[in-house]
């Protein structure tokens, strides 16, 4: 074994980043703001992700949730396994290994001037936030924005501060729903498809962006198709198991696509003939 090689960059080698701010949003979700120790910006596009390393534990792919218009970058990590547990046990000032930005973000050029409809289930809001904030920071480039957010239960209504801030923006129509009724909740009850008819935007001419738990996609897409949205105007964000994040390890393959390379953001028309996608 040796430490030298032929000069090319090691695509598996994380660089260090420091957690400069963190906030436990609830028992399972943790917000982190990170800055690269190199002082450089990550340089990501909305929709891209990073591989986060905790040395000794492993790596996990995590979406960038901040707009590249801000310095540093934000992650929201759900506590669900080894790496994510370990991240939850950290404190401000601790260091994480970061590889990225990785993957294919949203095709911003194709969205210019268009109305955007974000349909998010639970933690699916996290990757979308990077684009929402980007769009709101560049209002002249995009049309109106609708944000539909569905939570499984009242307790799981995350990101309330963020949602409240968006709601204040004139460009934004915010619609919320929870799956099960709750005494303190007077808003809409039902899965996210039940509020789609309340959107003020003409769906057929807008771009719809979906991110949420695996079972959500099929139903949302059915509703969009009923509203005459063409598959070219639907974008989905797909999660798969990933080990390398750079198209080598094979885990994230969806039929012939590698989610880490062609995705995680896909134009639905590129997937419609792909049985394993949705």
């Amino acid at each position, binding site marked *: *074994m*040796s*430490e*030298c*090689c*032929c000069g*090319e*960059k*090691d*695509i*598996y*080698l*994380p660089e*260090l980043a420091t957690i400069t701010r963190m906030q436990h949003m609830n028992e399972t979700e943790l917000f982190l703001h990170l800055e690269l120790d190199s002082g450089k910006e990550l340089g990501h596009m909305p929709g891209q992700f990073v591989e986060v*390393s905790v*040395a*000794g*534990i*492993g*790596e996990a792919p995590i979406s960038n949730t901040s707009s590249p218009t801000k310095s540093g970058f934000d992650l929201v990590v759900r506590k*669900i*396994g080894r790496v*994510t547990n370990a991240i939850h046990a950290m404190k401000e000032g*601790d*260091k994480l*290994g970061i590889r990225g930005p990785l993957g294919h973000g949203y095709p911003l050029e194709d969205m210019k001037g268009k109305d955007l409809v974000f349909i998010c289930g639970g933690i699916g809001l996290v990757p979308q936030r990077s684009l929402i904030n980007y769009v709101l920071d560049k209002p002249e480039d995009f049309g109106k924005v609708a944000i539909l957010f569905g939570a499984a239960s009242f307790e799981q209504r995350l990101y309330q501060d963020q949602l409240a801030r968006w709601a204040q923006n004139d460009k934004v129509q915010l619609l919320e729903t929870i799956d099960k009724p709750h005494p303190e909740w007077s808003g809409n009850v039902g899965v996210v498809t039940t509020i789609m008819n309340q959107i003020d935007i003409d769906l057929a001419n807008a771009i719809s962006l979906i991110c949420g738990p*695996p079972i959500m996609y099929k139903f949302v897409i059915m509703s969009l198709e009923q509203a005459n949205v063409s598959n070219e105007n639907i974008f989905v964000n797909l*999660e*798969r*198991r990933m*080990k*390398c994040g*750079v*198209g*080598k*390890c*094979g*885990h994230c*393959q*969806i*039929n*012939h696509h590698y989610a880490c*390379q062609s995705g995680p953001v896909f134009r639905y028309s590129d997937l419609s003939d792909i*049985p*394993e996608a949705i």
Partner: protein
Amino acid sequence: MSIKKISKEELSQLVSTLIASGDRVEGVQAKDDKFAFGPLTSADDLRLDYDVTLLSPRKYVLPPVESLMTFEVGGRYQSEYDTEKLTLIGVHPYDMIALNQIDQVFSQDEVDNHYTTRRKNMTLIACDVVTPSENVFASSMGTATVSEGYDILLTDIGDAYVADAPTEKGQALLCNAADATAEDLAKRQAVQERNQSDLNRHPLNCKIEDLPQLLEKAYDHPVWEEKAASCFSCGSCNQVCPTCYCFNVQDDVSWDLKSGTRSRAWDGCLLENFANVAGDHNFRKKRNDRFRHRLYRKGKYVPEKLGIGTACVGCGRCITACVPGIANPVDIYNTLLNDIKL
């Protein structure tokens, strides 16, 4: 450079010299009643008349387990590279083509420099097949002969080898050899032509270019369910395949609990948890989903990704390795061909 000829004795001397140099030399040897690549300690052990090796030479470019980096808990990651020089002797054409494919995977888009470092330090001596194995179907896959990737290609013409050395590394080894005569080259061509038709224990009933199109229409065919019913999800078909390259990555710490190693190891898409994510959602939960995935990778996905003919090189290893006897790719493609019109 012109094509050379080298007698069997001369080759044996060449191998002895390589071994004596102290550099790592590995080649095909007998293992019980089979053959395997392994460290060569004597030129006499080299068996270029073998039929097929148990494991493919992929184990040299992607070892079963390989350290990628060391780390200190809390930060500092340090890459690790394998820079040992290696001469590998006896790679069959189908395995050479498989290596060429993996080369492409690991050097396209983002370059995997762990892979390329190891690969650059290798000298590859290939050889045309002398004895067809019981399950080979390289002729069907267009992989019975090979024209690139090696440093030397040896063809057994009876009393000697014709040796083609397209690279400098290869030429350096053959600098003392005489040129092959027209007669030698004719003999070589005869061997290669024979192999192009005779390495075919399981003939495929279509052209390989037709496979993607066939598979396009075969996603819901009952054959997947039928075969996969007796699949152990043991991944043997993946492990022995020269073109499989998927891997897993794991961290382990040392006893000080402060430093450790991140390493990668062979994985396989047939294994139950290959596409499982946290929260226990498995994107290919059913045996037939995983079983189908492998055959699609070989016949459609990887060929499309790499722009090549096929990602199954017809070595037949998976046929031998599969205990329930269901892994034969030709068997499945031919079954589909019976039912599906191209």
